[in-house]
């Protein structure tokens, strides 16, 4: 059985930290775009942090948006280039802190773009600060004694916030473990399918390890993700899945 990464994705020497999930996510997007025959047309928007480095490794036209505004940039772009699939790729800080209003209104209006949110429960690029998705007790550079959930809230769960929204697809996958990676790819593929069918907002959150900012080795980061993060961020399809 042949498995080779498509030409649309390559390794960049300005790339990600060892064990970071961005490399897997970028490859999955390239695989899906290639398999669905839309690689020539896909337009992407990235945020300003780690995910923006995909401009150096994926072969798609890319717009770098202001922090937290990737989703609305993608929305404006999709309304201009109506025949192109448009994918917004950004992190949990962008989605649920500075860009929360944009996240909620894209859901409310069911805007027709693909949203891929890479959730590592931390602000990575700026050196590991607490995020709205950080776990209670999680030690970060801006919560060195552990995140106080009473003051700063429980980890933000998009499936709860979106429960009243009528959007075609909402799912959460994980970027570690081969079985999870397979499932994540299927989620991305479904998001593409429904977006190409102009059904509306196709939203996939992907849990990612962040070894550098979690101060854990890559394999321990994988364990933290699978054992601790999933307690707060269950994997699965919340809207638009096959079952139920």
């Amino acid at each position, binding site marked *: 059985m042949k498995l080779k990464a498509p030409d649309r994705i390559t390794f960049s020497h300005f790339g990600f930290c060892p064990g970071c999930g961005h490399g897997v996510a970028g490859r999955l997007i390239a695989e899906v775009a290639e398999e669905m025959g839309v690689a020539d047309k896909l337009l992407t928007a990235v945020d300003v942090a780690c995910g923006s480095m995909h401009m150096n490794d994926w072969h798609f036209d890319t717009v770098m948006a202001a922090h937290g505004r990737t989703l609305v940039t993608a929305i*404006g772009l999709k309304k201009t280039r109506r025949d192109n699939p448009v994918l917004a790729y950004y992190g949990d800080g962008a989605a649920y802190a500075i860009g929360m209003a944009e996240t909620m209104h894209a859901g409310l209006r069911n805007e027709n773009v693909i949203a891929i949110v890479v959730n590592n429960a931390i602000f990575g690029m700026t050196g590991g600060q607490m995020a709205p998705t950080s776990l209670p007790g999680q030690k970060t550079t801006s919560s060195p004694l552990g995140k106080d959930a009473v003051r700063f809230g429980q980890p933000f769960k998009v499936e709860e916030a979106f429960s009243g929204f009528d959007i075609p697809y909402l799912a959460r996958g994980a970027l570690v473990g081969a079985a999870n990676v397979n499932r994540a790819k299927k989620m991305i593929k479904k998001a593409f399918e429904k977006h190409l069918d102009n059904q509306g907002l196709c939203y996939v959150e992907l849990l990612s390890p962040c070894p550098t900012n979690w101060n854990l080795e890559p394999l321990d980061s994988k364990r933290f993700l699978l054992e601790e993060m999933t307690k707060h961020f269950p994997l699965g399809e919340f809207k638009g899945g096959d079952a139920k």
Partner: protein
Amino acid sequence: MSERVLMKGNEALAEAALRAGCRFFAGYPITPQTEILEYLSWRMDEVGGSYTQAESELAAVNMVYGASSGGARALTTSSGPGFSLKQEGISYLCGADLPAVIVNVMRIGSGLGNIFQGQGDYWQMTRGGGHGDYRTIVLAPNSAQENADLMVLAFDLAEKYRHPVLIASDAAIGQSIEAVELPEFRDHDLNKYDWPVRGAKADEPIRTVKNVFYSMGDAYEDYLRDKYAQIEAEEQRWESIQVEDAELVLVAFGISSRVCEEAVEGARAKGLKVGLIRPITLWPFPVKAFEKAVNAKAFLTNEMNLLGQTMDDIRLATGCRVPVYHSGSIFAITDTNDLIVRIEEVMEEVKGGGQ
């Protein structure tokens, strides 16, 4: 044959944008420009464009960023506090060399201020307004007709320089209903230029939109200086009225300039040698216009702000050779007769030895 209709200033802006080929608008309600949003909420569909009432002015300008990346002629409008929310987005547009038109229908004051006409955003609009080493072309209409004409020019200049262009309207112009000859419709092709993103084949390079200097490296410094030098040299626009022999030259833009036109007439009738320079581009400031004011012993601004925001630009344009005075209030458009009184005061003071 172009149509001549009775239109509200704000609506003239909106209709002219569509005729200039604008097919993307995102906005938010704020007085005194909400008519633009309301007008486009039904009119944009008629021309097959995209209209969004966004969740905030911040979201709106970032949608414009996305639309412009794809090659659209894209527009967003606001006033005062909402215009402030757009500053990061305007900075990003500049950094990425993206064309767009952003309108500020000026109202009074900092903070909430008030909803009536003001001209207190001059500094903000002409000195960048957001972070970074940039400023934008600023066009200042003084009538509903100019709202229409300058909207078309704004899109053309934005594309020519790959730079956002601001339109400094105000509540009085926005709310006035005047006769407007609307521009002809023109088409706009998203792929007119090579730079907008559109999808990349495997064997061609990708297009990206981001801070231009990421890809330009050392060449950026000369590139940026040349761009601004060209704009300053070629895009100054103004109107001059009886400036050559004037001993006192009024300087005013927007609605204030129309009061000044009357004041010039009134003052001349009294034998006073008064003229008017009306900047139509607030940036680049029409330095060339001031070169003709050879007999001026003083300049007098009339602007609806208290700090005399245009005074420094006049001093710079004239090398501080003569005093610059201020007139105007933030609470009302100056009454012509009051302005003539002020003109007389200033001319007395100047004759008697100046400031």
